[in-house]
């Protein structure tokens, strides 16, 4: 791990120069003496690289997805200045360093695998005067009959996804990035989500959603799978190494789900609750046997089970990296909880949309779930050291 020289030299500077350098330097020294965070808090994920972090990165415990609208002052020039500043903030914050001009140094010292990931919405490309550079699948999703979309959870010009294992550093980073965005942007929506706390489950275990289901079994795992399913190979060229993201807020009716037996819950998905194995298999990662029938000739995995529909809908695999949300109960006393569904794919139209259409047409799970928000963003490739996210598009 690293520690800034300023921290180490703080005491010396006070001793040598306290009288000479006056009030400012003295207070800086006093602010720099906090002890290093424990090991887990100091863990970092890279900011610079071919791809943005926060996508292939093993999912952290907490996430904040913030969507901004860009105001009338937004041009390619001003948005470029914005992205340059935000990239600098992110490069520092993810490495446990305060952002430039941030006086709350201590709130940056436990990054705990903080990642900050940027995305551009469909209208972003019009705003910067480069509509021809919009990746083809960076467009609002078509309406599905299951949708009950609310504007307050939908759309947006700029996405900032902040993930980390410590909700304190996630919160601080989210606010720091907002402070550097507000000259040009307003917040459209903020979705905060969670998974298991770091260390409470085996590393790499597939997380559960709030319906108790193991959720995300078929995700890409190898570099080859990420290259073929997630990362764009450059269409358009500036997007090489980027990915598309669909964020959908899925409300779960946990009150009616409570009335369902465990057997029917398993039939709804086609997987066992205990370990996520398909009802035709013995471990989570066994392929489901969709042809298998029981002694009476009835399919073991029901005709309208979620995994049968998902497997037969065409499309191609993509990355899911969702988070749960829990707002307690509504004013009417019903559950207000669900899932921040995310699909990361090189091409949403080819990979995600066919699956989504099939599930929207028929899926037992739809009885208890309702999409209430939907947004699509193009996540640019990562920046190299000294560069910034979006540079290839905005410069």
């Amino acid at each position: 791990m690293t520690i800034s020289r300023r921290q180490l030299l703080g005491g010396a500077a006070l001793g040598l120069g306290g009288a000479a350098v006056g009030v400012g330097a003295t207070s800086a020294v006093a602010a720099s003496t906090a002890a290093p965070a424990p090991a887990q808090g100091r863990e970092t994920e890279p900011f610079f690289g071919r791809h943005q972090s926060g996508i292939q990165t093993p999912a952290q415990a907490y996430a904040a997805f913030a969507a901004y609208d860009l105001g009338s002052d937004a041009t390619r020039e001003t948005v470029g200045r914005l992205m340059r500043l935000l990239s600098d903030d992110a490069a520092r914050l993810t490495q446990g360093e305060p952002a430039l001009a941030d006086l709350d140094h201590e709130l940056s010292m436990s990054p705990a695998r903080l990642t900050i990931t940027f995305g551009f919405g469909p209208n972003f490309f019009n705003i910067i005067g480069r509509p021809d550079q919009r990746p083809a699948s960076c467009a609002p999703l078509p309406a599905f009959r299951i949708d009950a979309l609310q504007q307050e959870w939908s759309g947006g010009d700029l996405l900032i996804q902040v993930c980390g294992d410590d909700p304190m550093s996630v919160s601080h980073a989210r606010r720091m990035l907002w402070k550097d965005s507000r000259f040009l942007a307003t917040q459209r929506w903020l979705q905060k989500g969670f998974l298991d706390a770091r260390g409470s489950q085996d590393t790499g275990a597939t997380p559960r959603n709030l319906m108790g289901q193991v959720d995300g079994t078929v995700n890409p795992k190898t570099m080859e799978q990420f290259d073929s399913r997630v990362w764009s190979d450059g269409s358009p060229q500036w997007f090489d190494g980027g990915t598309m993201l669909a964020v959908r807020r899925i409300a779960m009716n946990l009150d009616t789900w409570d009335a369902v037996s465990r057997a029917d819950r398993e039939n709804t998905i086609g997987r066992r609750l205990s370990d996520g194995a398909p009802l035709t298999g013995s471990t989570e990662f066994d392929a489901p046997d969709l042809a298998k029938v029981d002694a009476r000739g009835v399919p073991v995995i029901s005709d309208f089970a979620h995994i049968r529909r998902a497997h037969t809908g065409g499309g191609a695999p993509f990355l899911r990296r969702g988070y749960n949300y829990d707002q307690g109960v509504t004013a009417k006393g019903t559950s207000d909880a669900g899932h921040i569904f995310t699909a990361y794919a090189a091409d949403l139209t080819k990979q995600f949309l066919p699956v989504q259409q099939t599930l929207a047409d028929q899926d037992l799970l739809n009885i208890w779930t309702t999409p209430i928000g939907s947004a699509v963003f193009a996540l640019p490739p990562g920046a190299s050291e000294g560069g910034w996210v979006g540079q290839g598009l905005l410069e």
Partner: protein
Amino acid sequence: MFTFQRVTRARLPVLAAVVFSAAIALSGCGSDSESGSDSAESAAVEVTDAWVRTSDGPMTAIYAVIDNTTDADITIDSAANTASSITELHEMAMIDGEMVMQEKAGGVVLPANSEVVLQPGGDHIMAMGMTGPVQVGDEIEVTLTLSNGQTVSFMAVGKESAAGDEEYHGGDDMEMNGDME
């Protein structure tokens, strides 16, 4: 276990250039310099994390971390910048029980082998007589003239900050303005 890593602090391409006044540099750099060798002189001070508070008014403040890498104290005698006609070195000082901003007599001393942090509420570089606004993300060039004869130039990036609003509250009024969230 610990590495002394500076590079993480200079994410924005802060351009630090050392410019020598030839005559002074020769007299100040020891016998080796007399040889006429054009090997690069090492900078006596390194500047990182430089920023300027955004402004559309007559004044603003510039902040940075300044590292004196030499074994001798160095004084910043004066400063200049590309966004204003006048540049002064200021300090916050307690006078008659009140914190006030004033020009720093004798310049800013950089103790040997130490870093000095110019930050809101402390020593800072004051830009007065602005020639135009400084917007978020703008870069201005700042030049420091040092007591050892060197000048050091660097770029400072414009950032919004509610802190250190010296131009409005530097006198006897230290209450916060209305920009707080």
